[in-house]
């Protein structure tokens, strides 16, 4: 995207980068509960939350670098995250 009138040279890629940075910050804040959190269930749900954020991060990366391959990776990651959570709660 070319430069805008109001925003100078800010394009949509920069907006996506800012959103990706917000998601990474939120993932690291969740990682605190995953490390520090008492009990196994807090760690399981921390892994679930970080995986959920990673899906959006992968889709954002696919839009930033203009590569449609990342959406397949995001879909596969969603399925793996779901199966991992179900398998972890069975045992």
């Amino acid at each position: 995207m070319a430069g805008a009138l109001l925003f100078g040279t800010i394009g949509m890629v920069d907006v996506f980068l800012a959103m990706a940075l917000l998601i990474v910050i939120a993932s690291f804040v969740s990682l605190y509960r995953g490390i520090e959190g008492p009990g196994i269930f807090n760690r399981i749900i921390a892994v679930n939350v970080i995986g959920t954020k990673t899906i959006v991060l992968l889709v954002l990366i696919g839009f930033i670098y203009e590569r449609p391959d990342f959406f397949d990776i995001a879909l596969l990651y969603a399925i793996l995250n779901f199966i991992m959570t179900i398998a972890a709660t069975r045992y």
Partner: protein
Amino acid sequence: MSDTIINLTNVITILLLLVGAFFMLAGTIGFVRFPDFYSRMHATGKCDTLGEGLMLVGLIVYGGATFVSVKILFLIMFILLANPTSTHAIAKAAYDVGLEPWRKLDDRVEWMNTGDTGNTSNTGNTDDGGDDQDGGEER
């Protein structure tokens, strides 16, 4: 003018991304700050699903009607199915193991003294002070 950042598609995309990021950050803050496992799950299970759905809808609006958008739509539908299911599975596993819900102090002492299917190690105790602190640290 059509390739600038200010047109209708980009504004809708930025608004949806910002609202989704707000929900995600609120869910993360609730996940760190809430006192109990179940209330942490209450924070994350809804806020992450909604925030992620809103951000992906914003990216669909940005992408337009292409094959990629259909793929992201399938991703949203799968997440709307899978994320509450996994949240329910974790909560049910935690309840079956015997993790007690967080109560206020008086309610919790009364609930412990009446006896229930949870951890019964503190049931017969009439001492109210130290046991609640121990119970609070374990979950």
